[in-house]
């Protein structure tokens, strides 16, 4: 039961009251990582250091001096965050064997609060992708593929054979983190969000995925993809937990000049929430082509929920929504072309044996180290940045970005407090189907509902809503005003309470030791 509950009220209380110790909790999570290895959610498991951190936490609890709610809580971190002494690969050959000499600020903050770092999670190479399928360590499997809910609703001929063919993706690029939280191997995980990379897998894996306002949380130590849009993302099993993690991470960092200097006050979400004074906007452009009728129906039901609770619900328009993906495509590849230039083999990472000249060595290193997706984006980015194309593509995209951001300013300025939209177009597709289209096509399709929030720098959150007909999670997204995370999370918490999303009934294979305990905790509701 300890593995199931949220941090805020259950596990933390259990630790404080001594019903479970940090080392026991850590052991259980490590054991669970082993029994769910087939999900391929983790690239590196830092067993020794995690146990050591757990012991130190236990010591503090024994002395009655825990550091806070997060003390002793096992967490996982996406493998594009630097973690001192632990390999950081970005799921790329370019960084295999790279041992970070420092902790990203967000990692340091969690460790300073006593959190126990279990390991680094899998992702698409350099966070480029929407499936967590394109990393060098292989794809991540959605834990729901192995849930009783999914299995019951899928037409399987022979059990084991089709299980292999039927497993569904986690979404991406923070799929490993989402899967890690969803399968109970940790209580919270860090992801990153540039175009939806935290919210998309959160929706597919049935967990809460928060994208904070740009500038609220430090990016120092997060290996950059798009400097003007990247943010660290938070994945948890409930909204209250996301608020706790946000509280420990938010705030100005002198090491990241893009963090604002405003005073951030961490907050607790109220238990009794009144939404009757709220104004909820439903952007009509988010009824995008390809949106499944199931999700459309859930979206409508959600709007009704708010209406019935007395909130003002109205249709609004964000006219430039459909250009967001194109705009992102140009700005992202342009920034990637610049950010990936640092990988040349000289100071860290992979280095080719070809060494006739610096340029040959650089070219060969990058040819050997990057996959097709990364190389493709670098080349596209360089194309858009060529002198003859700069004005027509890069500057043009920056202008369209302003139009997209202004759409939101207008809507929020007209009295709307929160926007309610779907997070994804459909539930998770089977891996075999996903790989039929290439990465860019998939990203363009899958990021359509999440990308605009990154353009405008706004906070957004995925809240697991219901199971689809196939027995897979579907989430809805709330987008809030800049730096109004408290309001955003309060609304999200209210919604979470209304929909009562079901607990995953994960069926872990029977050859693992201690399986009955895990199965019990998995299906305990």
């Amino acid at each position, binding site marked *: 039961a300890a593995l199931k509950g949220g941090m805020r009220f259950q596990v933390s209380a259990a630790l404080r009251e001594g019903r479970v110790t940090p080392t026991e909790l850590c052991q259980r999570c490590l054991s669970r990582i082993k029994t769910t290895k087939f999900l391929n959610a983790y690239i590196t498991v830092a067993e020794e250091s995690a146990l050591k951190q757990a012991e130190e936490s236990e010591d503090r609890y024994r002395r009655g001096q825990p550091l806070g709610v997060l003390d002793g809580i096992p967490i996982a971190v996406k493998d594009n965050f630097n973690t001192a002494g632990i390999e950081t690969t970005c799921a790329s050959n370019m960084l295999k064997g*790279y041992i970070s*000499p420092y902790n990203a600020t967000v990692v340091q903050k969690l460790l300073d609060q006593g959190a126990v770092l279990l390991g680094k999670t899998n992702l698409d190479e350099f966070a480029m992708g929407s499936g967590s399928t394109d990393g060098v360590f292989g794809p991540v499997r959605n834990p729901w593929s192995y849930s009783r809910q999914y299995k019951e609703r899928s037409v399987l001929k022979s059990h084991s054979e089709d299980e292999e063919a039927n497993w569904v993706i986690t979404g991406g690029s923070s799929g490993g983190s989402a899967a890690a939280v969803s399968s109970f191997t940790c209580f919270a995980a860090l992801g990153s969000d540039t175009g939806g990379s935290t919210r998309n897998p959160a929706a597919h894996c049935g967990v809460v995925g928060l994208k904070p306002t740009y500038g609220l949380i430090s990016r120092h130590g997060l290996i950059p993809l798009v400097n003007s849009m990247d943010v660290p993302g938070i994945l948890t099993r409930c909204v209250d937990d996301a608020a706790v993690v946000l509280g420990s991470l938010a705030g100005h960092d002198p090491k990241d000049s893009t963090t604002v200097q405003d005073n951030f006050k961490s907050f607790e979400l109220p238990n009794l929430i009144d939404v009757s004074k709220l104004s909820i906007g439903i952007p009509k452009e988010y009824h995008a082509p390809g949106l499944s009728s199931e999700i459309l129906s859930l979206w409508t039901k959600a709007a009704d929920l708010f209406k019935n609770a007395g909130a003002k619900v109205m249709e609004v328009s964000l006219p430039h929504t459909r*250009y967001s993906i194109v705009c992102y*495509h140009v700005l992202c590849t342009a920034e990637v072309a610049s950010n990936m230039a640092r990988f040349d083999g000289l100071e860290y990472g992979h280095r080719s044996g070809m*060494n006739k000249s610096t340029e040959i060595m650089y070219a060969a290193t990058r040819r050997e180290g990057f996959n097709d997706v990364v190389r493709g984006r670098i080349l596209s980015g360089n194309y858009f940045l*060529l002198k003859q194309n700069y004005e027509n593509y890069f500057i043009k995209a920056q202008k*369209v970005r*302003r139009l997209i951001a202004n759409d939101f300013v207008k809507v929020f300025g007209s009295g709307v407090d929160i926007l309610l939209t779907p997070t994804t177009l459909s539930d998770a597709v089977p891996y075999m189907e996903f790989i039929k289209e290439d990465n860019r096509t998939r990203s363009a399709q899958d990021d359509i509902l999440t990308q605009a929030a990154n353009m405008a720098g706004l906070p957004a959150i995925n809240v697991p809503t219901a199971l689809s007909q196939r027995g897979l999670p579907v989430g809805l997204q709330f987008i809030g005003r800049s730096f109004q995370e408290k309001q955003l999370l309060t609304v999200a918490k209210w919604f979470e309470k209304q929909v009562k999303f079901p607990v995953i009934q994960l069926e872990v294979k029977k050859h693992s030791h201690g399986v009955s305990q895990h199965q019990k905790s998995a299906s305990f509701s």
Partner: protein
Amino acid sequence: QKVTVEVLDHLEHLALVDFRDSEGVERLQKAIQFADQLHEVNTDGVEPMDSVLEDRCLYLRDDDVTEGNCTRELMKNAREKIEEYFVAPPGNIPLPKLEERETFLQGS
């Protein structure tokens, strides 16, 4: 409009990343086509946006050294080094020209 071999060659030099095969070139063509949709949007009188934080001042801090002395740590990750130097192959030698190097673009 197809991208010319000269431009492709130029990109390989700038990016120090190669197209590897015709699929790579196709990928670029599709990316350009996709990006062309931007031209449907009227942006007359619109200023380009660099950052969503453009209304705030970038702040400065005092010019005081607060950290450093981590040479040993940083050198650990380099493959080739001598004392406190990173070792690079000879520079100022441009990549061989299109005709002289092994690249799939030669065939185009």
